């Protein structure tokens, strides 16, 4: 498909778009597989925390199953887990971290280093459910942009988080984080955190598309930086792609689906991709699919070989 502007190519692309919009019922259901799975992990983890806090879920006996929340927790009384960004803020605020926290950080950090940082966003973060809903509704209502904000603002907010933690002596983001608020208040009782979530919902719905997660959230920014070299990536197969551009329309971070870059790299390279699976489930040509990074090169080499490119 090298003649990008050619008539045939445009026909192919149109055909692809057609396929996207004329899915059979089962095809449609199948295209929801990742969103169902993601809700399953997001709500499942919440349920484990909730059950441990409220119904005293235990395993093994007399040991809380999963105690705490996303900021820090302990699994089956054995495995500590801790949010690396929260721990970093606490450290900068002037508190010496204990070994238990450090082990927890190492486990979580290591995990997302491997699977790609922002996998946290699409598969774990509770706020993602709110912003996904806002994004979906915004699409349905066809609401136009009010203004433009650069997506790199989040990295400045991340830097400010660290600087302000050191200056004020408290973990600057943790004290205002809607992510922490939402999880904490679902698990440990109601405050006014839902107002913050409502604000995010309205902001995303009416003001800025993917406003919070795609432009502002410093935790998302942090994981973007961490997971750049993660193993689980969306592979791109340039031989089958018709350049219909439907993937970038559903992607909450469309800049990562720049077709030119995809062709160069053969995969979604940017750490800003959250492995949400929207594009892979949607692509009518099967050009986008989850794969492990080391296998992607082989796959692409094979694909290129078989079509003689």
């Amino acid at each position, binding site marked *: 498909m090298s003649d990008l502007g050619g008539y045939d190519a445009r026909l192919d692309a149109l055909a692809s778009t057609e396929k996207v919009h004329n899915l059979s019922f089962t095809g449609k259901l199948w295209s929801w597989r990742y969103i169902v799975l993601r809700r399953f992990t997001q709500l499942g983890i919440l349920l484990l925390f909730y059950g*441990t*806090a409220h119904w005293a879920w235990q395993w093994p006996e007399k040991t*809380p199953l999963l*105690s*705490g*929340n996303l*900021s*820090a*927790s*302990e699994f089956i009384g054995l495995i*500590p887990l*801790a*949010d690396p960004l*929260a*721990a970093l803020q*606490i450290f900068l*605020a*002037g*508190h*010496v*971290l*204990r070994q*238990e*926290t450090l082990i*927890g950080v190492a486990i979580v950090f290591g995990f997302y280093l491997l699977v790609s940082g922002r996998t946290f966003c699409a598969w774990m973060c509770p706020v993602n459910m709110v912003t996904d809903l806002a994004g979906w509704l915004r699409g349905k209502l066809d609401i136009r942009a009010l203004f433009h904000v650069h997506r790199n603002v989040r990295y*400045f907010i991340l830097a*400010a988080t660290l600087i*302000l933690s050191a*200056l*004020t*002596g*408290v*973990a*600057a983001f*943790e*004290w*205002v984080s809607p992510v*922490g*608020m939402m999880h*904490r*208040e679902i*698990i*440990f*009782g*109601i*405050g*006014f*955190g839902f*107002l*913050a979530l409502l604000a995010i919902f309205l902001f995303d719905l009416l003001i800025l598309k993917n406003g919070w997660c795609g432009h502002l959230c410093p935790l998302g920014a942090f994981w973007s930086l961490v997971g750049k070299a993660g193993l689980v990536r969306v592979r791109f197969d340039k031989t089958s792609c018709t350049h219909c551009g439907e993937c970038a329309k559903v992607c909450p971070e469309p800049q990562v689906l720049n077709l030119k870059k995809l062709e160069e790299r053969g995969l979604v390279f940017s750490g800003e991709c959250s492995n949400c699976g929207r594009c892979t489930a949607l692509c009518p040509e099967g050009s986008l699919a989850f794969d492990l990074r080391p296998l992607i090169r082989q796959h692409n080499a094979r694909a290129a070989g078989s079509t003689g490119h």
Partner: protein
Amino acid sequence: MAEHDVARRDFLVKAAQGTAMAATGGLLWVYLLKQEARAHPFALRPPGALAEKDFNAACIKCGQCVVGCPYHTLKLSGSGSDLPIGMPFFEPREIPCYLCPDIPCMKACPTGALSPELKNINDSRMGLAVIDLENCLSWKGLRCEICHRECPLKGKAITLETHPRGISKHAMFYPIVNSEYCTGCGICEKACPTTEAAIRILPHKLVQGKIGDHYRLGWTFDTEITQDFKPSDVIGPGEGKTLAPGKAPGQDYLNSGDL
């Protein structure tokens, strides 16, 4: 204007706008944090909690202490409440701290915000019990003393003083809290039978005074005698002369028998 001047101006304006945005946002953020961190003076923290400022820095707001407490004593403050967001506290009139000897709340804390230095739960100082003398039944003259009986450190944290009462042959039994031993567990506050508790736990800094180092409580010293009125040592009229008894300054007229 030359073209690159325009570009230059645009750039400078953009930079100024960016800086202004960042500064405004940053100031707002700092203001929010300061508001939040200005700990509500009435917050009672779990056993072993670090001093307020360190506690604010250290607590990761995970709630593992809450899950660890077998009595459901601890809660995390919600956002929008008047306590700093997301941190553990308790309200003794609802559920006090029962002073678990193995301190599970502290053991559950991953950050050390509840300090592992606390080895004996009786050394915890969550607050200090304060008695409202006007509404305490015992201080009114009734036989209550429930707080004393319920206190896990009774006889130390709360002691009873007996006082004769006017013409009645019954004595008054006054409960007195001793800050040296009171843990601030709040079991007394929970137990107090008055409509509003007449004994309450408050953070030390709200109720505890400090006398200052310059006061000397002379009667507490056994040996240190600071004044000596031995008559022979005072400045007398001449070397080697002893004053007659009763002639020392300040004693002369008192002892002269003239009064």
